[in-house]
């Protein structure tokens, strides 16, 4: 079976291990992820800061192209892209004049027929059903599921999970044998939007998240957003500086964790690309 896929720039570039692990998972299930033809950047954190119409037109082009390609479901693994695409669909569907204006800007018709899925929704719909019998090596670790901002907020538009103390990632993790910890920073902002331009602030925000996960004795942070990942993983040096200690807590994409449980090769999941090495304690390796 085939479903639409919008990787977005990060997942296609600096966070390519997220794409690799999505594709690896899809392969294991015989799902073909078909990229939106000639997709462009959604504008992410930059466009909406400077120009509203631009921030709507960029995602609108993507959605129009997906519709044109006949895609009914579109997997958007990047939480930031997912958020922008959902917001755009929401804004354009509730305001006909705006919809016309933006169609005029992109030169493409927009109908709003494509159902946008974040990675957790995709997993729930297509991966979970056959998951138990496919597990080769239970992911027997304590995990802190980090949802961040963009996967669950604004709730009125996304209508995904509950906005405070969400549970969907935790449920997925339980199914692959992990023990999710009850922790306090599931939906606190990591500061990714200012990762480059205000690095000091970001170390502070991300540092608090990492610190709480360590305090709750998590073996790994589980994420579903490349922004969060690069902030918590690539910025670990600054975070360690802020925390005044060296924290080796790895940051793992939900798709990578599932992939490990399915026995997919670490390299295929892109685990070698992480800055913080993914060296999970041996105990689980033994429990096969």
């Amino acid at each position: 079976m085939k479903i639409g896929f919008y990787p977005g720039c990060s997942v296609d570039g600096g966070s390519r291990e997220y794409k690799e692990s999505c594709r690896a998972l899809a392969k294991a299930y015989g799902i073909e992820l078909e990229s939106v033809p000639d997709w462009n950047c959604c504008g992410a954190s930059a466009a909406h800061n400077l120009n509203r119409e631009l921030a709507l037109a960029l995602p609108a082009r993507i959605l129009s192209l997906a519709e044109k390609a006949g895609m009914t479901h579109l997997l958007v693994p990047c939480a930031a892209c997912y958020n922008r695409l959902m917001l755009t669909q929401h804004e354009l569907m509730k305001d006909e004049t705006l919809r016309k204006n933006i169609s005029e800007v992109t030169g493409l018709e927009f109908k709003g027929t494509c159902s946008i899925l974040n990675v957790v929704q995709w997993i729930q719909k297509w991966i979970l059903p056959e998951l138990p019998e496919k597990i080769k090596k239970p992911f027997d670790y304590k995990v802190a599921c980090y949802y961040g901002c963009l996967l669950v907020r604004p709730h009125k538009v996304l209508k995904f999970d509950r906005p405070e103390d969400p549970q969907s990632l935790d449920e997925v993790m339980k199914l692959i044998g992990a023990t999710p910890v009850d922790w306090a920073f599931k939906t606190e902002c990591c500061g990714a939007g200012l990762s480059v331009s205000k690095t000091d602030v970001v170390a502070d925000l991300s540092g608090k998240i990492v610190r709480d996960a360590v305090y709750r004795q998590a073996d790994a942070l589980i994420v579903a957003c490349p922004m969060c990942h690069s902030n918590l993983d690539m910025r670990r040096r600054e975070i360690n500086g802020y925390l005044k200690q060296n924290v080796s807590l790895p940051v793992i994409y939900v798709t990578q964790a599932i992939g490990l449980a399915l026995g997919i090769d670490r390299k295929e999941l892109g685990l070698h690309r992480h800055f913080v090495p993914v060296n999970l304690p041996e105990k689980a390796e033994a429990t096969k």
Partner: protein
Amino acid sequence: MVDQMDIPPSQLLRLLQTEIPSNDEKILRSHTIWLCLNCEMCIGRCPMEVDIPPMMDFLRSESIRRKMVNPKAGNIIAFHRSFLESIRYTGRLFELGLVLSYKSKTFHLFQDAGLAPEMIAKGKLGFIPERIKKVADMKRIFSRTLKKGGQS
């Protein structure tokens, strides 16, 4: 982020409510509007559902339009502009290009310099920008949206 802000969001709202031009100007010149990360936590918790994030988007573009950008926001805007420039010409974000462009705008030549070699080693950084086929679409979108009082 509130610790970093010169005007907390609640006071920013109060300043807006006064409808006094000098207060409007104070808002548009504030550092706050550039620090807001649109994490949407405020509307999630606000009992009155004041939708602050789109308001911040508006205030930022208005601040640029009226040339009242807070000097401390230079880096932030430089980053956003480098980002948009990158996609304007290729349709997709070219991360290396973005970083180089941002550095040339801000003269922060050595910041994050340590990241690049490791990113390259891990195969995370591409050297050639990816271009979409219909770059003309980007030109069309940028020119049509920015001409209406927007900015980039």
